[in-house]
């Protein structure tokens, strides 16, 4: 069963205080906190079987290799990949996206080709395509957005043309919380022969993910946003496509045979993993996946949906003067991300005010500058939830914002 208080006990950092107040960590879209189990997995690796992987004949190396490949298997199963050799370790979602842009993009995007994105992409799913388009003279288009922060799906059919080679979309927006209809988008992309990429950086941590059901060609996400350590990310690619892709980074580990003149490549997935991998953090991510499985991703999603519903109501009731809450108000298509702006009070000031009360929120453009600007603001305040957050914490947030508005507006308390 999903018992949030019991879960909280697993996260050492959640018992911290900030300026004397209990930490209310609501910056989960930036990075998540880590349970004891994940931290222990790292310590266990370094204390008991740290060694370089692959081809080592000694015991530590064999154990490290086994656990390292086990972790890949766990992640593969977590997203229901057909096979773990389609799961490539990277540093983070950003590197996964760059890998695709360099390796698949260089070979498959040509002059005049079109890449279709959404206006709510994170910089990491925007800038690599801008750069690729610049190198190739390709064209980037955007699906229009409706006022409530959802995609205008009616426009998609005319935007995907025979020149479209890639449709790339964030599954859940880190700036608005919007959950996009990626399955439908993927179908439309495939109908026109375009490839379909899902940026799962915000969805994989928060809801069940099934790449075969999504039928996506590429999926990227980051370990650090799903209870895993920093420094480890994932790229999943359908076999037919991964088989055709040239290596991105070259060097040790990813070769089959090397002479002074040339090299040939190792099998999948090692072909895409040059140099000593991030062994400890891969294993740490495997342990994060175990933890998430023990809770059940359906339960995680339900918990967060309830929290989102609760927060939407609380904000509505508080009826804060001049406060603009962005994103859709239907919790079915919204994750636990609350981005808002308040007239008169600058996001930074609000962020600092809340921090002094122990409430950690993010302020700024959330690596989605063009989107945030299109909202007519330079920055927003963003509170984002995860599986360990509680209704009590939502109350503290809403009270904190209410108080801040009063404080900055008229200096009263």
């Amino acid at each position: 069963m999903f018992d949030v208080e019991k879960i909280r006990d697993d996260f050492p950092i959640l018992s911290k205080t900030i300026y004397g107040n209990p930490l209310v960590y609501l910056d989960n879209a930036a990075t998540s906190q880590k349970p004891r189990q994940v931290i222990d997995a790292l310590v266990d690796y370094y204390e008991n079987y740290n060694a370089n992987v692959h081809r080592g004949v000694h015991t530590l190396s064999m154990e490290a290799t086994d656990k390292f490949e086990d972790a890949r298997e766990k992640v593969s199963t977590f997203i229901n990949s057909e096979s773990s050799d389609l799961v490539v370790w990277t540093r983070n979602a950003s590197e996964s996206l760059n890998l695709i842009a360099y390796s698949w993009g260089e070979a498959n995007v040509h002059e005049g080709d079109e890449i279709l994105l959404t206006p709510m992409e994170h910089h990491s799913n925007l800038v690599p395509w801008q750069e690729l388009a610049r190198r190739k003279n390709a064209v980037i288009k955007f699906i229009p957005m409706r006022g409530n922060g959802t995609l205008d799906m009616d426009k998609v059919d005319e935007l995907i043309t025979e020149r479209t080679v890639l449709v790339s979309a964030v599954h859940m927006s880190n700036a608005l919380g919007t959950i996009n209809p990626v399955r439908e988008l993927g179908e439309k992309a495939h109908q026109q022969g375009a490839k379909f990429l899902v940026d799962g950086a915000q969805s994989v941590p928060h809801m069940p993910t099934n790449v075969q059901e999504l039928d996506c060609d590429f999926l990227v996400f980051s370990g650090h946003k799903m209870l895993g350590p920093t420094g480890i990310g994932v790229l999943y690619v359908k076999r037919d496509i991964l088989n055709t892709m040239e290596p991105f980074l070259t060097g040790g580990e990813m070769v089959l045979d090397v002479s002074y003149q040339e090299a040939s490549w190792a099998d999948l997935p090692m072909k895409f993993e040059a140099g000593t991998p991030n062994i400890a953090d891969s294993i740490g991510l495997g342990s994060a996946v175990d933890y998430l499985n023990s809770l059940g991703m359906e339960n995680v999603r339900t918990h967060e949906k309830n929290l989102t519903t609760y927060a939407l109501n609380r904000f509505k009731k508080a009826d804060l003067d001049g406060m603009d809450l962005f994103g859709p108000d239907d919790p079915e298509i919204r994750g636990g991300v609350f981005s808002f702006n308040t007239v008169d009070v600058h996001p930074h000031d609000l962020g600092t005010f809340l921090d002094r009360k122990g409430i950690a929120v993010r302020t700024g453009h959330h690596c989605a500058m063009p989107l945030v600007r299109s909202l007519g603001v330079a920055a927003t305040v963003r509170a984002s939830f995860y599986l360990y957050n509680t209704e009590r914490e939502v109350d503290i947030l809403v009270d904190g914002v209410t108080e801040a508005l009063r404080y900055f507006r008229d200096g009263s308390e």
Partner: protein
Amino acid sequence: MDQNNIDDIYRDRVILDHCRNPRNTSLLDHFDLTGDAINPFCGDEVHFQIGLRGENLIERIQFSGDGCAINMASGSLLSEAVTGLTVKEATQLSIRFVESMRKPIGENAEGEFIGELSALISVKNFPVRVKCALLAWSALEDALSKNKSTIEPDSLPM
């Protein structure tokens, strides 16, 4: 609830006051120098118009900007602080202030700066906000640097 913590930064309400009611905001009819600074990360902006008496004395200054309380207060406080200074004095004040803001906490006393500027120095307690306080000073430097050709070499910032 206890607001003392928050008052570290918005101390004596000076910052809050300058932010709510920024000084020197009326556009100048005539001005000799303009300076601008923008922080693309948070969208904050500061603009100055400066009217000189002779070649050196800052007689009037106009401030406009957009952004957080600290940015607005900084622009407003700065505009008051440099009015009546020579370009050289203003440049020196700017260098001194920026250095002081960048030094680790404790290495200089707030007392170095008198009057309302000392409220601004307290932003050091919030390292992440220091750049908010410094944006206006960048805009000032921008303006003063345009006076280069007309001022004596020894008054140039190092």
